[in-house]
């Protein structure tokens, strides 16, 4: 498909607000039970949404469940099993939720005791509410990504690079989804984008990484 036939890239932006659910897990058993009971948006938040929340630059795990199990329940084995889950492998969030419950249940069967966290180190189930809006910016030519991406807000990057993996049919970011529309022309660029793991970076660092890739590719 030629450039003129591909629709422009619509730059959107978003803001995510955290909402407490009141569900607090003290033990592994609580984690499993509440996992089945909470709003499905909680599962989204603890995998994806927390990347928009205050977080330190060096996350050890790619989701909050694994992190809590490791730090507060002191169960590194279960933490590793939870951390290996790639949420993009699941068609919907209910399937992902079920996988989490299955892994936790399997671990409970193996254990001879029930791990419990200290009173004030509970796991708090949080729901993320996403507000998405159009910036009315359009990118017609892929080469323009080299100077548009460095100007994007953290919300735009989250929406197009992380949240997109839930929305797009191939579970890819919006940049690749758009570039695929040009056929094989940008395949090397798409391969580079595929190599970025968004779960182990901050949005600020992600912006720099993306900007560098686009700059180098387009020689800007």
């Amino acid at each position: 498909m030629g450039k003129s036939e591909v629709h422009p890239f619509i730059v959107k932006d978003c803001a995510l607000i955290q909402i407490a659910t009141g569900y607090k897990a003290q033990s592994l058993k609580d984690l499993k039970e509440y996992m089945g009971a909470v709003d499905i948006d909680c599962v989204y938040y603890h995998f994806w949404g927390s990347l928009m929340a205050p977080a330190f630059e060096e996350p050890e795990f790619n989701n909050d469940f694994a992190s809590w199990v490791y730090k507060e329940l002191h169960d590194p084995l279960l933490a590793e099993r939870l951390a290996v889950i790639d949420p993009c492998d699941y068609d919907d969030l209910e399937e992902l939720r079920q996988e989490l419950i299955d892994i936790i249940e399997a671990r409970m069967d193996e254990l001879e005791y029930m791990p419990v966290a200290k009173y004030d180190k509970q796991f708090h189930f949080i729901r993320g509410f996403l507000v998405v809006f159009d910036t009315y910016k359009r990118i017609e030519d892929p080469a323009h990504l080299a100077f548009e991406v460095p100007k994007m807000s953290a919300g735009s990057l989250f929406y197009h690079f992380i949240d997109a993996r839930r929305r797009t049919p191939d579970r890819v970011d919006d940049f690749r989804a758009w570039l695929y529309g040009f056929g094989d022309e940008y395949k090397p660029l798409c391969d580079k984008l595929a190599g970025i793991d968004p779960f182990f970076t901050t949005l600020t660092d992600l912006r720099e990484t993306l900007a560098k890739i686009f700059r180098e590719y387009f020689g800007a």
Partner: protein
Amino acid sequence: MGKLDKLAEITGYHVVEHLYQLAHWVKGLKVVHINSTKEGGGVAEILKNIVPLMKELGIEAHWEIITGGDLFFQCTKAMHNALHGRHVVISERLIREYERTNEENAQKLGALLSDADIVFIHDPQPAALIAHFPDRKGKWIWRCHIDVSRPVRSVWRYLRNFVTEYDASIFHLATFAQHLPHPMFLIPPSIDPLGEKNVPLSELEVKAVLSELGVDVDRPYVLQVSRFDRLKDPIGVIEAYRMVKRYSPSLQLVLAGGGASDDPEGMAVLEEVKMAAEGDPDIKVLYLPPKADRTINALQRGAVVVLQKSIREGFGLTVTEAMWKFKPVIGGDTGGIRLQVVNHHTGFLVNSPEGAALRIRYFLNNPDKIDEMGKKAHKFVLENFLITRHLRDYLTVMISLLHGLKGRLELV
């Protein structure tokens, strides 16, 4: 140049552009913030910064305070302590005064509040205002700045009668959220990098301020800046300093803080601290006036190590301020300090004077670590705890409440 443009120079223009785009959806709305003091404490400081920025974004923002007498503030201070988990007795007389004062203020603020699109009520002092506006037009939000994770239940039950009437509440952290029949948003507070308390200062100015305060500029000092409040554990800080002093005889300690008009206990705690410090000329206990922002700025910049050894802490903006100035912080392992002090990265979390002493000694012997952790601390604040992020969260809450909280919201 507007303030938002100046902030953009620090945060990047994309951050401010994002704010303008979000604000487009709430432009022209009448938003009212109510608290109980214009001076002293974190809430007044945030409002002083955030209200003008809301106006700059095209929102008709107002900030009003409720007024009350000594009995009212005795009551609200007792409530504050009880919500932090300290056992106190609040007499019927004080409760009546609390309700009467809220009723009086409701009359005074009636026209403004009845007509507002969004009302933010900050902390317990004005929480009961809502009872006097049964026909309110707008959305009312209770903004809690206190660590209410383990409140005295009887006091929380009383306050909850009012809080449940609100359309939403906001807490700093999920740990603080209680069971309430409305959405409970989570928003940490923030600092203003352009405020007098955080603007860059020359080394010359820092030294001049320190000399004026009697601090020896040629010797290192550790610092805690906070209101004189038992929950901030100033006595524990003195104990920690004394444990370190035998290893670092040249060390000084500065305990600096002011009072707030809604805190009647401050002077009593100050006296306790002065007594504990008696006999050691290297301990400076500084009671600062409300407008001492630049002095606090200088004190934070000059300190070798900053402490916030609170026993309970809503958030701890002094932690954020110190981190912004490239200082790692030794903080109490509690409340909002945990969100900021990432153990071994942006500082250390401690649980006792002994723990604080150990970490002070570690820093004094590893100055490279102060630099390394200080840089991480600054970046962490830049990305998460500046006023621009706070403003974005408030705008998002307003939009969410006006449009509904189902699934995700696509604004078109």
